[in-house]
């Protein structure tokens, strides 16, 4: 009986709920081993739109993608940043290994244009990554983008505010980003394969000046200058 069960369980069509499915998905390593372990395919998935819900901007959401973007900039395709909230600072991107010749920034005036541009980029098949910052995104647009990403095989990331996120989403990968203990807290809300994951704390910044400066070192010259 038990051997019959074993044979049955070896059927590849059967997936056991207690293990994460190791799916063969074309993926790009994120550059963070602990995150790669939790993502089906072992990295940012290609041909998929990921939804990134941030508690607030500037917490490290771009740094999370920088290692992958640096790798992708070695490929042929474009890295497209659509409607970024601030100026992508070219010297910092170059310092982190991103080839600026592959970078394309797209400014838009409306969410309609942002989503349209993202769809074109994802569908084109020659953008290795499309990152977009729409003010709001609805389920229908996400579904369109997901289809476009499947067609083009590109890696897409849509950033949005966690506060305004819809309860459900057609995006196969959905993450919530926040800060805990001065580190980026990544919670995988939804992924292909399996269920809940503990929140990961990542050091996405280049490790520099992690500890506060001694106040004396800073205060003294200022006080002097102010006097």
């Amino acid at each position, binding site marked *: 009986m038990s051997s019959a069960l074993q044979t049955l369980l070896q059927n590849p069509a059967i997936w056991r709920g207690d293990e994460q499915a190791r799916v063969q998905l074309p993926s790009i390593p994120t550059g963070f081993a602990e995150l790669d372990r939790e993502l089906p395919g072992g990295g940012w998935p290609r041909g998929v739109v990921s939804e990134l819900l941030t508690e*607030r901007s500037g917490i490290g959401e771009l740094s999370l993608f920088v290692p992958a973007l640096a790798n992708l900039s070695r490929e042929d395709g474009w890295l497209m940043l659509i409607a970024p909230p601030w100026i992508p600072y070219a010297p910092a991107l170059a310092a982190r290994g991103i080839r600026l010749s592959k970078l394309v920034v*797209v400014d838009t005036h409306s969410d309609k244009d942002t989503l349209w541009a993202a769809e074109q980029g994802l569908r084109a098949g020659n953008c290795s990554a499309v990152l977009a910052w729409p003010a709001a995104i609805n389920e229908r647009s996400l579904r369109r983008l997901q289809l476009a990403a499947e067609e083009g095989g590109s890696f897409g990331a849509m950033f949005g505010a966690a506060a305004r996120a819809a309860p459900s989403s057609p995006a196969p990968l959905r993450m919530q980003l926040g800060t805990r203990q*001065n580190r980026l807290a990544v919670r995988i809300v939804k992924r292909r394969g399996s269920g809940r994951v503990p929140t990961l704390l990542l050091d996405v910044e280049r490790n520099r000046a992690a500890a506060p400066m001694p106040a004396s070192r800073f205060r003294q010259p200022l006080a002097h200058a102010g006097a």
Partner: protein
Amino acid sequence: MLWAAVHLPDLSLQLRLRGTAAPGPVVIQDESHRPRVLSCNDAATGLGIRPGMPVSAAFALAAGLHLFTRDPEKEAKALRGVALWAGQFTPTVSIASGNEVLLEIGGCLRLFGGLRQLGGRIRANLRELGYHAVVAVAPTATGALLLSRAGIATSVGDRHELRRALAPLRLRLLDQPADTIATLAGMGVHTVRDYLALPRDGLARRFGQRLLDEIDRALGHLPDPRPPFIPPARYATALELPAPVQETEPLLFAAKRLILELAGYLAMKQAGVTQLRFEFEHADRSATRVAVGLSAANRDAGHLITLLREKLATVELPAPVETIRLIAAETRPLGSSNRSLFADQRPAAEDRWRVIEHLRARLGADAVYGLEMFPDHRPELALRRVPAGKAQDGDCDLYRPLWLLARPLPLKADDLLPQADGPLTLLDGPERIESGWWDDFDVTRDYFVARDDSGVKLWIFRERNDQKNWFLHGLFA
């Protein structure tokens, strides 16, 4: 030698019809004092209008018909367009008459996969251009012309077959004076077969060498040289619409005809277009100009149409359009594309500009750009915008934030320490930047890396002037 003759019957009428999908009754009249109907479309025929009828009678049948006068000059121009387009198939193209173009296709059959394939392709592409053409293929140019004039869209491979195919044709298809044909008809000689039954020397004495020569050329007994068509240096075409339109879709329908024609010309020139200009002419105001710029030379008709579609979506036409003019303002050499041997899903290298051009066409050329580093110590000047894809790779060993604010944001300071929704913790600094005293953008700042109470790393600076104000300049994100 193998010649394909392209015969375009009722060319003036065709020119009026090719710009629209749903024409009303259209009638072409001759230029005489009392004009008669030269040709008319199906919609007009359905109303009882027939060629040869006085125009006044046609108007009595259909008050709302679109009437145009035949314009041989426009016909000739359009025919040159067809000849240019045909250059993509063969280097030897010749304009044979006012509505006929000859293509020597013997040398390029193998390239296009045989006679059937090539003939089918020429016919299908002509249909896409909006022309109804009779395409006949024969070993002699004159023979092919006679067949196409007779409306026989056939392919004849050798001379024996050609003789059989030509035999039933009427002699009035020949380029002979009308009285010659009339005299022959009076003798009971109506077809090529009748003619061939008569003795040559008698015919020569009666009608001169010209008649004999034409038939001999058709049968391949005499050489039949044709003057080659020489393309002009600058490409421009125009299409007049049968009725003015203002909506985008009908305009695109007509523009597509022109773009396909251009694509054929570009294929012949082994060139791609980098600057394309459309002029939409209105009845009583100056034309609306629409320029389409491309990052890399391209001759893909589908892509050019997409770009025009996006561009038209952003342009407001002030009035209905009567004529569309297309000018290839700038062309560049472009090698023919290699088909890949293995089914390769990845788009070719030249395709990579496509998406950029597509975005630029809708969002504007300035909205899509690349960024590169610029050697300046002032942070806001250390990068500059360049056309997308033209940026230089750079390297930087300074510690800089990923996001830069377009304009530094003033911060409140409390007890000389900056605040941003709460106290900031300084992590690193100061990095002193002093530069620009020479160009009116004087920067004297001390930069610090700071962290706010929610853990976000900020790049802030304090001005070293009298105010000592704090500003937020970037986020490490």
